[in-house]
């Protein structure tokens, strides 16, 4: 579909949610828990059961489809690196035995720097994991405790060194910016440190304050918990410009890759409506038309599995209009932008004609570029991608 997306496959991906963390970060609103060994073991046995039954589950929520030929398996969380090693091995081998996987399948794992030890690295390597994503969050020793993190910048250096020595194919670092009062110079320093570590991929997320988090509560109580909007815009621009100059292309709002080949193969599936199967509490699945979501709480998810059901709590089937709206919303977050030919082929509408005025206006405002059959957000456009999505007319898409 996309000449720029040579790295992208149309094969489905598999996501496995590991809901445990050593402690809960004050900004995090994901489905996470702390968990001792026995709680983790219970989870693993339920997950194995979900894997075992994944093909059979029809149930009243319908079938998640018999997805086959996954070319990515992604362990996310939570902190997958926090899971006890035997548990992780059992899960990997259960997945491998299913015969679900494509021959070139790549395995990803999210890890905390403090969990990256020589022994854990060797376990992961043995399991076939080739890409690690490190939850670094900050490269400023003063910021780390504020973010509720237990590692130091030195720990990060050590972990990255070990990962490299162990010969992992690809390494990604996660960072957070936009702390209250964060200066451009401070963030530039962190970016310099990050680039010096020579990762293949970087995710730089703007700090987001969610209601049901400790930070959310502090904000409600009147504390300033994030940078001003103007500063956020400056930090956003700095991030993209600095990393571009350092050879990292910002291919999505928060994601940067050393080359097209190093883009997150798994995450791109979410943005291009490529099917994916999600296992574990709160995981989402998508079969190209319907989306399914598992029970969010570990308890409810386990109960469903105990009852012999799938872990699915709900589903929605997207109308053409919803699918197109999502596509516009997601593509406006990517540097490649929106493929008008794809819309024409799949929805039988002339999107450009429907949005002549919108495109003219957004282009004049410097937020959008029309390039042949592609609508691409500019950097200023990416910064306000949520607004762009609202601006377009979706029309009544009829296939």
């Amino acid at each position, binding site marked *: 579909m996309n000449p720029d997306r040579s790295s992208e496959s149309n094969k489905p991906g598999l996501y496995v949610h590991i809901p445990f963390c050593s402690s809960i970060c004050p900004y995090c609103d994901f489905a996470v828990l702390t968990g001792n060994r026995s709680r983790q073991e219970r989870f693993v046995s339920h997950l194995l059961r979900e894997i075992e039954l994944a093909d059979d589950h029809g149930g009243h929520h319908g079938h998640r489809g018999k997805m086959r030929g996954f070319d990515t398996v992604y362990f996310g969380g939570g902190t997958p690196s926090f899971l006890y090693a035997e548990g992780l091995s059992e899960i990997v081998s259960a997945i491998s035995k299913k015969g679900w996987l494509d021959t070139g399948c790549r395995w990803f794992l999210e890890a905390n720097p403090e969990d990256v030890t020589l022994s854990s690295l060797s376990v992961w390597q043995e399991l076939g994991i080739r890409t690690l994503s490190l939850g670094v969050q900050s490269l400023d020793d003063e910021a780390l405790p504020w973010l509720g993190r237990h590692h130091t910048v030195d720990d990060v250096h050590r972990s990255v060194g070990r990962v490299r020595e162990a010969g992992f194919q690809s390494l990604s670092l996660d960072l957070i910016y936009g702390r209250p009062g964060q200066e451009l110079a401070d963030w530039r320093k962190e970016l310099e440190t990050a680039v010096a570590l020579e990762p293949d991929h970087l995710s730089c997320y703007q700090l987001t304050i969610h209601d049901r988090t400790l930070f959310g509560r502090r904000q409600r109580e009147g504390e300033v918990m994030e940078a001003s*909007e103007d500063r956020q815009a400056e930090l956003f621009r700095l991030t993209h410009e600095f990393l571009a100059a350092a050879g990292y292309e910002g291919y999505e709002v928060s994601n940067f890759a050393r080359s097209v080949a190093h883009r997150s193969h798994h995450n791109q599936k979410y943005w291009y409506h490529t099917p994916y199967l999600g296992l574990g509490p709160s995981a989402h699945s998508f079969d190209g038309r319907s989306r399914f979501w598992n029970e969010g709480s570990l308890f409810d998810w386990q109960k469903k599995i105990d009852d012999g059901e799938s872990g699915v709590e709900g589903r929605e089937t997207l109308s053409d209009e919803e699918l197109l709206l999502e596509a516009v919303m997601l593509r406006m977050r990517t540097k490649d932008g929106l493929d008008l030919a794809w819309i024409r082929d799949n929805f039988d509408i002339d999107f450009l004609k429907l949005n002549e005025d919108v495109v003219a206006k957004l282009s004049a405002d410097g937020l959008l570029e029309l390039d042949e059959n592609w609508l691409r957000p500019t950097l200023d456009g990416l910064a*306000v991608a949520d607004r762009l999505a609202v601006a377009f007319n979706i029309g009544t898409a009829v296939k």
Partner: protein
Amino acid sequence: MALDQIRNFCIIAHIDHGKSTLADRLIQRCGGVSDREFRDQILDSMDLERERGITIKSNTVSLHYKAKDGRDYLLNLIDTPGHVDFSHEVRRSLMSSDGALILVDAAQGVEAQTVANLYLAMEHNLTLLPVINKIDLPAADIERVQEEIDTDLGLDGLEAIPVSAKLGQGIDELLEAIIERLPPPTGDPGAPLQALIFDAQYDAYRGVILYCRIKQGTVKPGQTIRLMHTEKEYEVEEVGLLQLKRVKQEELSAGAVGYLIANIKAVHDIAIGDTVTHKDNPAPKPLPGYKEAKPVVFSSIYPMSTDEYEDLTKALEKLTLNDPALTYQKDSSAALGFGFRCGFLGLLHLDVIQERLQREYDLSLLLSAPSVQYRITTEKEGLLMVDNPSRFPDPMHIIKSEEPFIKASVMMPERYLGAVMELCRERRGVNTAFNYLAVGRVELTSELPLAEVLFDFYDRLKTVTQGYGSFDYEMLDYRETQIVKVDILVNGESVDALSQVVHVDNARPRALHYCERLAETIPKQQFKIAIQGAIGGQIIARTTINAFRKDVTAKCYGGDITRKRKLLEKQKEGKKRMKMVGAVEIPQSAFVAVLKTDES
């Protein structure tokens, strides 16, 4: 019944001094209503009146009373509204009465409206009977109030009847005093008919019901009557007394207060204050004191959503059936769509109509800033009456502008005098004067432009007098002034619904106020938005809304997509309700926020 067995009287009081409660007590004592029928404050029939504890629409009730002298009396209690906006209704009630109870709160004492209404009552030669209510209150100070009645009202404070309407104390004494001290009506049943229309109510089955006081002559069904001011003729179908429900009678004659039904289709066909006479044997002239109720405050009402326009039309039609003082005509705004330019008797009237539309008709409304009616003399079109900024003529052609003035009266403890004088000065008051009433109390009078009272005057007065100041006004005259039309521009485009005609001194602060409110309420957009206040081409105030620079969710993976799409659908829905001014989207909430400040 002989004339000397009839008493026609009304109760005048400041708002909240317990007029309706006293009326209830009198009705109960005279058995005018059974206990089952009795609802507190029976004369306040609208829900809104009951809730706010104020009387807007007067009601009338005839009571049978057996006095201590052993004779039966007919007491016609003519209710009066207690608020200044409705002084024309007060006037009509007074004209139908021969006496009035002046009700004074035993804790609050004499207040501005008490005095204003007292003067009205004196104009109509009514016999006055002071009554001190709420003597049961711990804060009641009967001696002080007696002194105030003496000094402020010029009546004998010692003759005032102390009552507690709430507890029913003193009601018997009051009834006896009404018989002894208020005069019976006079008039000749055989003379040519002169009946004063003091109120009217629309009934879906019978048409307009006229409430009349018969001054001279007699009227009965079958006769042809003539309304002397409107010059219309009708055949009388039914006459009777008002005893909470209508009680049919064979005739009504001089001295009586009752109703008259004559197949009249709409309230607009008649005029309150008009005189009814016979077609065949007409009175030589109508009764004096007829005055048309003219709206003095104007505002445009728009439905929040355009599909409520039809409902709004119907609701206004219905409201005017019973409220001829409310006027309306079609109006339209580029930003807000179709609506109506409405005329009101005052701010409270506006408030009441707005609430009734919202509550009884379930409409969501947007009201433009209230305006007075200006008199503008132009070179080309001569004299123009302008109550709508959209009709404001080209300033180049204006020879002279005039605005309505009122005589405001504020009564307050003397310690607030300085603050209130300052407030009047700020509001362009002239000929401000004061005189001392009872010890420590002052009445201040000032001639103020009505327009100045429309903009948060009540609130400010309440604040500077800590709630102790009471306010009343009457219309004076038109005076020469310097007015300008202030437009609000959003990125250079004028927002018609926000245009205002104001005094030249107020132009800049008012424009700035609007600009700031808009800047607070219009959400950031992709481009910088300039909000300006302008007189013609001259910019007098300016604020800006910076462009959106960052609006994107950091993370958007599997679980975020559905949530995000739903949010987007909501935003798209909200976008449909935005009003477009040029390229700028203005949410309705911005209009509400800007316009609301002016109503309060």
